[in-house]
Protein backbone atom coordinates (compact mmCIF):
# COMPACT_ATOMS: atom_id res chain seq x y z
CA UNK A 1 0.00 0.00 0.00
CA UNK A 2 1.38 3.37 -0.99
CA UNK A 3 2.15 5.98 1.75
CA UNK A 4 -0.35 8.78 1.84
CA UNK A 5 1.05 12.23 2.55
CA UNK A 6 -1.44 13.83 4.90
CA UNK A 7 0.52 17.05 5.30
CA UNK A 8 0.44 19.29 2.32
CA UNK A 9 3.50 21.28 1.13
CA UNK A 10 1.67 24.52 1.81
CA UNK A 11 1.10 23.59 5.49
CA UNK A 12 4.83 22.90 5.87
CA UNK A 13 5.63 26.33 4.45
CA UNK A 14 3.22 27.98 6.84
CA UNK A 15 4.71 26.12 9.77
CA UNK A 16 8.24 27.11 8.70
CA UNK A 17 7.18 30.72 8.36
CA UNK A 18 5.50 30.66 11.78
CA UNK A 19 8.72 29.29 13.28
CA UNK A 20 10.74 32.06 11.64
CA UNK A 21 8.29 34.63 12.85
CA UNK A 22 8.51 33.29 16.37
CA UNK A 23 12.32 33.43 16.31
CA UNK A 24 12.23 36.90 14.89
CA UNK A 25 9.83 38.05 17.58
CA UNK A 26 12.01 36.53 20.30
CA UNK A 27 15.05 38.20 18.78
CA UNK A 28 13.22 41.54 18.56
CA UNK A 29 12.08 41.35 22.18
CA UNK A 30 15.56 40.35 23.29
CA UNK A 31 17.20 43.19 21.37
CA UNK A 32 14.66 45.62 22.81
CA UNK A 33 15.34 44.32 26.32
CA UNK A 34 19.11 44.43 25.88
CA UNK A 35 18.99 47.98 24.53
CA UNK A 36 16.72 49.06 27.36
CA UNK A 37 18.86 47.37 30.01
CA UNK A 38 22.12 48.74 28.64
CA UNK A 39 20.56 52.18 28.36
CA UNK A 40 19.37 52.04 31.98
CA UNK A 41 22.76 50.72 33.06
CA UNK A 42 24.63 53.60 31.41
CA UNK A 43 22.11 56.13 32.67
CA UNK A 44 22.46 54.93 36.27
CA UNK A 45 26.24 54.76 36.10
CA UNK A 46 26.56 58.19 34.47
CA UNK A 47 24.21 59.76 36.98
CA UNK A 48 25.92 58.04 39.91
CA UNK A 49 29.41 59.38 38.99
CA UNK A 50 30.22 61.76 41.86
CA UNK A 51 31.93 64.42 39.70
CA UNK A 52 29.99 67.28 41.21
CA UNK A 53 30.69 66.23 44.77
CA UNK A 54 34.41 65.84 43.95
CA UNK A 55 34.44 69.31 42.35
CA UNK A 56 32.70 70.73 45.39
CA UNK A 57 35.31 69.10 47.60
CA UNK A 58 38.04 70.56 45.40
CA UNK A 59 36.59 74.04 45.74
CA UNK A 60 36.35 73.60 49.49
CA UNK A 61 39.97 72.41 49.74
CA UNK A 62 41.12 75.22 47.42
CA UNK A 63 39.42 77.81 49.60
CA UNK A 64 41.11 76.21 52.64
CA UNK A 65 44.49 76.33 50.88
CA UNK A 66 44.02 79.96 49.86
CA UNK A 67 44.09 80.78 53.58
CA UNK A 68 47.55 79.18 53.69
CA UNK A 69 48.87 80.94 50.59
CA UNK A 70 51.59 82.80 52.49
CA UNK A 71 52.91 79.52 53.84
CA UNK A 72 52.83 78.05 50.34
CA UNK A 73 54.69 81.04 48.90
CA UNK A 74 57.30 80.89 51.70
CA UNK A 75 57.71 77.17 51.22
CA UNK A 76 58.15 77.50 47.44
CA UNK A 77 60.81 80.19 48.00
CA UNK A 78 62.59 77.97 50.54
CA UNK A 79 62.59 75.09 48.10
CA UNK A 80 63.88 77.35 45.30
CA UNK A 81 66.68 78.76 47.51
CA UNK A 82 67.67 75.28 48.71
CA UNK A 83 67.81 73.92 45.16
CA UNK A 84 69.95 76.86 44.02
CA UNK A 85 72.28 76.68 47.03
CA UNK A 86 72.66 72.92 46.68
CA UNK A 87 73.60 73.28 43.03
CA UNK A 88 76.09 76.07 43.83
CA UNK A 89 77.69 74.09 46.64
CA UNK A 90 77.96 71.01 44.45
CA UNK A 91 79.56 72.78 41.51
CA UNK A 92 81.89 75.17 43.36
CA UNK A 93 85.60 74.50 43.50
CA UNK A 94 87.03 72.58 46.46
CA UNK A 95 90.11 74.82 46.70
CA UNK A 96 89.92 75.26 50.51
CA UNK A 97 90.00 71.48 50.94
CA UNK A 98 92.95 71.18 48.52
CA UNK A 99 94.91 73.98 50.21
CA UNK A 100 94.21 72.55 53.65
CA UNK A 101 95.24 69.00 52.67
CA UNK A 102 98.46 70.09 50.99
CA UNK A 103 99.45 72.65 53.63
CA UNK A 104 98.89 70.06 56.38
CA UNK A 105 101.33 67.73 54.60
CA UNK A 106 104.13 70.30 54.76
CA UNK A 107 106.61 69.38 57.48
CA UNK A 108 107.31 72.09 60.11
CA UNK A 109 110.95 72.09 58.92
CA UNK A 110 109.77 73.31 55.51
CA UNK A 111 108.47 76.71 54.50
CA UNK A 112 105.80 77.37 51.90
CA UNK A 113 107.22 80.15 49.76
CA UNK A 114 104.27 80.33 47.40
CA UNK A 115 101.10 78.46 46.66
CA UNK A 116 98.97 79.27 43.62
CA UNK A 117 95.68 77.68 42.62
CA UNK A 118 93.83 78.83 39.57
CA UNK A 119 91.75 77.13 36.89
CA UNK A 120 92.28 73.65 38.34
CA UNK A 121 96.03 73.85 38.54
CA UNK A 122 98.30 74.14 41.63
CA UNK A 123 101.85 75.36 41.79
CA UNK A 124 103.62 75.11 45.14
CA UNK A 125 107.10 76.28 46.07
CA UNK A 126 108.60 75.06 49.33
CA UNK A 127 112.02 75.55 50.88
CA UNK A 128 113.86 73.64 53.57
CA UNK A 129 117.29 73.00 54.96
CA UNK A 130 117.07 69.22 54.62
CA UNK A 131 116.13 66.93 51.76
CA UNK A 132 114.43 64.37 54.03
CA UNK A 133 111.23 66.37 54.71
CA UNK A 134 111.19 67.47 51.05
CA UNK A 135 111.33 63.82 50.04
CA UNK A 136 108.55 63.01 52.49
CA UNK A 137 106.43 65.82 51.03
CA UNK A 138 107.00 64.55 47.49
CA UNK A 139 105.98 61.03 48.60
CA UNK A 140 102.83 62.34 50.28
CA UNK A 141 101.91 64.27 47.15
CA UNK A 142 102.54 61.17 45.04
CA UNK A 143 100.26 59.16 47.31
CA UNK A 144 97.54 61.77 46.81
CA UNK A 145 97.91 61.50 43.04
CA UNK A 146 98.11 57.69 43.06
CA UNK A 147 95.03 57.35 45.27
CA UNK A 148 93.09 59.69 42.99
CA UNK A 149 92.39 62.14 45.80
CA UNK A 150 92.23 65.84 44.94
CA UNK A 151 95.04 65.79 42.33
CA UNK A 152 95.39 63.74 39.19
CA UNK A 153 99.05 64.25 38.30
CA UNK A 154 102.23 65.67 39.74
CA UNK A 155 105.32 67.13 38.16
CA UNK A 156 108.45 68.50 39.80
CA UNK A 157 109.34 71.64 37.95
CA UNK A 158 112.60 72.26 39.78
CA UNK A 159 114.63 71.22 42.80
CA UNK A 160 117.48 73.60 43.49
CA UNK A 161 119.98 74.34 46.23
CA UNK A 162 121.13 77.80 47.21
CA UNK A 163 124.50 77.83 48.93
CA UNK A 164 124.02 81.43 50.12
CA UNK A 165 121.08 80.57 52.35
CA UNK A 166 121.89 76.86 52.57
CA UNK A 167 118.36 75.87 51.53
CA UNK A 168 116.73 73.58 49.03
CA UNK A 169 113.84 74.90 46.93
CA UNK A 170 111.24 72.60 45.38
CA UNK A 171 108.71 73.76 42.78
CA UNK A 172 105.88 71.34 42.02
CA UNK A 173 102.94 71.59 39.69
CA UNK A 174 99.78 69.50 39.71
CA UNK A 175 96.35 69.41 38.10
CA UNK A 176 93.27 69.08 40.26
CA UNK A 177 90.72 66.32 39.80
Amino acid at each position, binding site marked *: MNDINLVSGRSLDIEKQAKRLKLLRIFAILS*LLIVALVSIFFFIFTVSLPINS*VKQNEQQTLSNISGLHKRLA*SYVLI*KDRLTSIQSLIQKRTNYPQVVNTIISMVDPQLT*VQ*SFDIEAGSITITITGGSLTPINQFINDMLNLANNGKLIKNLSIQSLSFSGAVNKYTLVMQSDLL
Partner: protein
Amino acid sequence: MDIKDIKLEDVKDLNMDKGLLLVNYRKYKDFILPLTVIFVSVAILVFVLIPQANQYLSQRGQLDTENQKLTLLKNNYNFLSNLDQPTLDSQLGTLSKVLPPDKDFVGIVTAITTVSSKTGVSIGDFSFVVGNLSNNSNGSNSSPNIEVQLTLKGDPKSISTFLLELYKTAPVVEIKKVQVGAQGSTISVLFYYKPYPPQNVGDASPVIPLTASDNKLLGDFSSWNNITQQAQSLFPNLNLNQSTPGSINSSGSASSTSPQPGGTTSPF
Protein backbone atom coordinates in the same frame (compact mmCIF):
# COMPACT_ATOMS: atom_id res chain seq x y z
CA MET B 1 7.19 60.54 -20.60
CA ASP B 2 3.90 62.17 -21.54
CA ILE B 3 0.55 60.78 -20.29
CA LYS B 4 -0.50 60.20 -23.89
CA ASP B 5 2.38 57.78 -24.32
CA ILE B 6 1.15 55.38 -21.58
CA LYS B 7 -0.26 52.28 -23.17
CA LEU B 8 -2.93 49.91 -21.92
CA GLU B 9 -0.31 47.16 -21.26
CA ASP B 10 1.57 49.40 -18.93
CA VAL B 11 -1.54 50.11 -16.85
CA LYS B 12 -2.15 46.37 -16.61
CA ASP B 13 1.43 45.83 -15.42
CA LEU B 14 0.98 48.47 -12.76
CA ASN B 15 -2.16 46.82 -11.48
CA MET B 16 -0.40 43.48 -11.42
CA ASP B 17 2.55 44.91 -9.41
CA LYS B 18 0.16 46.45 -6.92
CA GLY B 19 -1.57 43.14 -6.51
CA LEU B 20 1.69 41.32 -6.04
CA LEU B 21 2.73 43.87 -3.45
CA LEU B 22 -0.52 43.40 -1.62
CA VAL B 23 -0.11 39.63 -1.64
CA ASN B 24 3.42 39.91 -0.33
CA TYR B 25 2.33 42.41 2.32
CA ARG B 26 -0.39 40.06 3.54
CA LYS B 27 2.06 37.18 3.53
CA TYR B 28 4.84 38.98 5.50
CA LYS B 29 2.94 41.60 7.48
CA ASP B 30 3.64 39.73 10.72
CA PHE B 31 7.39 40.14 10.12
CA ILE B 32 7.23 43.91 9.81
CA LEU B 33 6.87 44.72 13.49
CA PRO B 34 9.72 42.48 14.80
CA LEU B 35 11.99 43.67 12.01
CA THR B 36 11.15 47.30 12.81
CA VAL B 37 11.86 46.66 16.48
CA ILE B 38 15.22 45.09 15.65
CA PHE B 39 16.05 47.94 13.30
CA VAL B 40 15.11 50.55 15.90
CA SER B 41 17.12 48.67 18.57
CA VAL B 42 20.18 48.65 16.35
CA ALA B 43 19.65 52.34 15.59
CA ILE B 44 19.39 53.14 19.32
CA LEU B 45 22.52 51.09 19.92
CA VAL B 46 24.48 52.94 17.25
CA PHE B 47 23.18 56.47 17.67
CA VAL B 48 22.42 56.58 21.40
CA LEU B 49 24.10 53.86 23.41
CA ILE B 50 27.56 54.00 21.87
CA PRO B 51 27.85 57.80 22.34
CA GLN B 52 26.42 57.32 25.83
CA ALA B 53 29.09 54.70 26.56
CA ASN B 54 31.78 57.05 25.23
CA GLN B 55 30.40 59.84 27.37
CA TYR B 56 30.40 57.56 30.38
CA LEU B 57 34.00 56.56 29.79
CA SER B 58 35.08 60.16 29.32
CA GLN B 59 33.25 61.17 32.50
CA ARG B 60 34.95 58.29 34.26
CA GLY B 61 38.32 59.61 33.06
CA GLN B 62 37.35 63.11 34.17
CA LEU B 63 36.38 61.74 37.57
CA ASP B 64 39.76 60.03 37.89
CA THR B 65 41.51 63.29 37.00
CA GLU B 66 39.39 65.25 39.46
CA ASN B 67 40.04 62.65 42.14
CA GLN B 68 43.79 62.90 41.56
CA LYS B 69 43.53 66.69 41.73
CA LEU B 70 41.52 66.44 44.94
CA THR B 71 44.05 64.07 46.49
CA LEU B 72 46.84 66.47 45.50
CA LEU B 73 44.98 69.43 46.98
CA LYS B 74 44.24 67.53 50.19
CA ASN B 75 47.89 66.47 50.46
CA ASN B 76 48.95 70.08 49.86
CA TYR B 77 46.48 71.28 52.47
CA ASN B 78 47.60 68.71 55.05
CA PHE B 79 51.25 69.45 54.34
CA LEU B 80 50.77 73.22 54.54
CA SER B 81 48.62 72.97 57.69
CA ASN B 82 51.48 71.21 59.43
CA LEU B 83 53.95 73.96 58.53
CA ASP B 84 54.67 76.68 61.01
CA GLN B 85 54.82 80.21 59.57
CA PRO B 86 57.46 81.51 62.03
CA THR B 87 59.67 78.49 61.28
CA LEU B 88 59.23 79.10 57.54
CA ASP B 89 60.10 82.78 57.98
CA SER B 90 63.18 81.86 59.97
CA GLN B 91 64.28 79.26 57.39
CA LEU B 92 63.68 81.69 54.55
CA GLY B 93 65.61 84.35 56.45
CA THR B 94 68.56 81.97 56.89
CA LEU B 95 68.46 80.89 53.26
CA SER B 96 68.21 84.50 52.12
CA LYS B 97 71.37 85.22 54.04
CA VAL B 98 73.11 82.23 52.50
CA LEU B 99 71.91 83.16 49.01
CA PRO B 100 70.78 86.79 49.14
CA PRO B 101 68.13 88.01 46.72
CA ASP B 102 70.28 91.02 45.75
CA LYS B 103 73.80 92.35 46.03
CA ASP B 104 74.29 92.09 49.78
CA PHE B 105 77.41 94.19 50.38
CA VAL B 106 76.77 94.28 54.10
CA GLY B 107 76.65 90.49 54.20
CA ILE B 108 79.85 90.26 52.13
CA VAL B 109 81.82 92.70 54.25
CA THR B 110 80.55 91.10 57.43
CA ALA B 111 81.42 87.62 56.21
CA ILE B 112 84.97 88.68 55.36
CA THR B 113 85.56 90.47 58.66
CA THR B 114 84.02 87.68 60.72
CA VAL B 115 86.15 85.01 59.09
CA SER B 116 89.15 87.27 59.43
CA SER B 117 88.64 87.76 63.17
CA LYS B 118 87.85 84.07 63.66
CA THR B 119 91.01 82.84 61.90
CA GLY B 120 93.41 85.61 62.87
CA VAL B 121 94.09 86.50 59.26
CA SER B 122 94.25 90.23 58.73
CA ILE B 123 92.63 91.74 55.67
CA GLY B 124 94.56 94.18 53.54
CA ASP B 125 92.97 95.87 50.56
CA PHE B 126 89.89 94.44 49.02
CA SER B 127 87.94 95.44 45.97
CA PHE B 128 84.55 94.52 44.56
CA VAL B 129 83.80 94.01 40.90
CA VAL B 130 80.16 95.05 41.02
CA GLY B 131 79.01 95.06 37.41
CA ASN B 132 75.45 95.86 36.40
CA LEU B 133 73.33 97.01 39.31
CA SER B 134 69.97 96.28 37.66
CA ASN B 135 68.41 92.91 38.45
CA ASN B 136 68.21 91.77 34.84
CA SER B 137 68.65 88.14 35.85
CA ASN B 138 65.32 88.19 37.67
CA GLY B 139 63.42 84.93 37.20
CA SER B 140 66.21 83.09 35.47
CA ASN B 141 67.86 80.02 36.95
CA SER B 142 71.35 81.48 36.90
CA SER B 143 72.94 82.76 40.08
CA PRO B 144 74.74 86.02 39.47
CA ASN B 145 77.71 86.88 41.62
CA ILE B 146 79.98 89.64 42.83
CA GLU B 147 83.70 89.05 42.54
CA VAL B 148 85.84 90.22 45.43
CA GLN B 149 89.65 90.39 45.36
CA LEU B 150 91.11 90.11 48.86
CA THR B 151 94.61 90.62 50.12
CA LEU B 152 95.28 88.58 53.23
CA LYS B 153 98.12 88.65 55.73
CA GLY B 154 98.88 85.46 57.59
CA ASP B 155 100.86 82.24 57.42
CA PRO B 156 99.77 79.53 54.92
CA LYS B 157 98.09 77.50 57.65
CA SER B 158 95.87 80.38 58.77
CA ILE B 159 95.14 81.25 55.13
CA SER B 160 94.02 77.65 54.67
CA THR B 161 91.76 77.94 57.74
CA PHE B 162 90.45 81.27 56.40
CA LEU B 163 89.46 79.59 53.13
CA LEU B 164 87.78 76.67 54.93
CA GLU B 165 85.84 79.07 57.15
CA LEU B 166 84.82 81.20 54.19
CA TYR B 167 83.12 78.13 52.68
CA LYS B 168 81.07 77.84 55.89
CA THR B 169 79.99 81.45 55.85
CA ALA B 170 76.97 83.17 54.42
CA PRO B 171 76.61 84.40 51.70
CA VAL B 172 77.59 81.32 49.73
CA VAL B 173 80.94 81.82 47.97
CA GLU B 174 83.21 80.17 45.48
CA ILE B 175 86.95 80.68 45.55
CA LYS B 176 88.30 81.14 42.04
CA LYS B 177 91.93 81.90 42.71
CA VAL B 178 94.39 81.56 45.58
CA GLN B 179 97.88 83.03 45.57
CA VAL B 180 99.81 82.48 48.78
CA GLY B 181 103.17 84.27 48.88
CA ALA B 182 105.81 85.35 51.35
CA GLN B 183 104.65 88.99 51.21
CA GLY B 184 100.96 88.20 51.52
CA SER B 185 98.20 86.26 49.89
CA THR B 186 95.59 87.20 47.35
CA ILE B 187 92.32 85.39 46.83
CA SER B 188 89.54 85.93 44.37
CA VAL B 189 86.10 85.07 45.73
CA LEU B 190 82.70 84.99 44.04
CA PHE B 191 79.82 85.93 46.35
CA TYR B 192 76.60 84.54 44.90
CA TYR B 193 73.14 86.02 45.05
CA LYS B 194 69.88 85.21 43.29
CA PRO B 195 66.71 87.29 42.92
CA TYR B 196 63.50 85.74 44.20
CA PRO B 197 61.53 83.96 41.47
CA PRO B 198 58.21 85.53 40.36
CA GLN B 199 55.36 84.80 42.80
CA ASN B 200 53.11 82.86 40.46
CA VAL B 201 52.56 79.85 42.70
CA GLY B 202 49.33 78.03 41.92
CA ASP B 203 47.44 76.49 44.82
CA ALA B 204 46.97 73.34 42.75
CA SER B 205 50.68 72.90 42.04
CA PRO B 206 52.12 69.86 43.78
CA VAL B 207 54.07 70.71 46.95
CA ILE B 208 57.11 68.47 47.17
CA PRO B 209 58.31 67.95 50.76
CA LEU B 210 61.91 68.77 51.61
CA THR B 211 64.24 65.85 51.03
CA ALA B 212 66.66 64.50 53.62
CA SER B 213 69.51 66.35 51.91
CA ASP B 214 67.47 69.59 51.99
CA ASN B 215 66.91 69.17 55.72
CA LYS B 216 70.57 68.32 56.28
CA LEU B 217 71.61 71.43 54.37
CA LEU B 218 69.20 73.57 56.40
CA GLY B 219 70.66 72.08 59.57
CA ASP B 220 74.20 72.75 58.36
CA PHE B 221 73.42 76.41 57.74
CA SER B 222 72.57 76.92 61.38
CA SER B 223 76.25 76.32 62.20
CA TRP B 224 77.52 78.63 59.43
CA ASN B 225 79.08 81.98 60.15
CA ASN B 226 75.95 83.95 59.54
CA ILE B 227 76.37 87.33 61.08
CA THR B 228 74.68 89.95 58.96
CA GLN B 229 73.28 91.68 62.07
CA GLN B 230 76.76 92.70 63.24
CA ALA B 231 77.58 94.62 60.08
CA GLN B 232 76.83 98.09 61.32
CA SER B 233 78.70 97.58 64.58
CA LEU B 234 81.78 96.28 62.79
CA PHE B 235 81.71 99.06 60.19
CA PRO B 236 79.97 101.98 61.86
CA ASN B 237 81.17 104.43 59.20
CA LEU B 238 80.41 102.22 56.22
CA ASN B 239 78.33 104.17 53.73
CA LEU B 240 75.91 101.87 51.95
CA ASN B 241 73.66 104.43 50.32
CA GLN B 242 75.64 105.32 47.19
CA SER B 243 74.34 104.00 43.92
CA THR B 244 77.23 104.49 41.50
CA PRO B 245 78.34 101.17 40.01
CA GLY B 246 82.02 100.41 40.02
CA SER B 247 84.81 99.40 42.29
CA ILE B 248 84.59 99.46 46.06
CA ASN B 249 87.53 99.25 48.40
CA SER B 250 87.98 98.95 52.11
CA SER B 251 88.97 102.56 52.57
CA GLY B 252 86.33 103.93 50.20
CA SER B 253 82.64 103.37 49.92
CA ALA B 254 80.31 100.59 48.80
CA SER B 255 77.46 100.73 46.36
CA SER B 256 74.35 98.62 46.21
CA THR B 257 70.93 98.40 44.62
CA SER B 258 69.07 98.39 47.91
CA PRO B 259 70.88 96.61 50.67
CA GLN B 260 69.05 96.27 53.93
CA PRO B 261 71.47 96.30 56.82
CA GLY B 262 70.81 93.57 59.29
CA GLY B 263 68.42 91.64 57.14
CA THR B 264 67.22 90.67 53.71
CA THR B 265 64.62 92.03 51.35
CA SER B 266 61.24 90.42 51.96
CA PRO B 267 59.78 88.67 48.91
CA PHE B 268 56.23 89.45 50.04
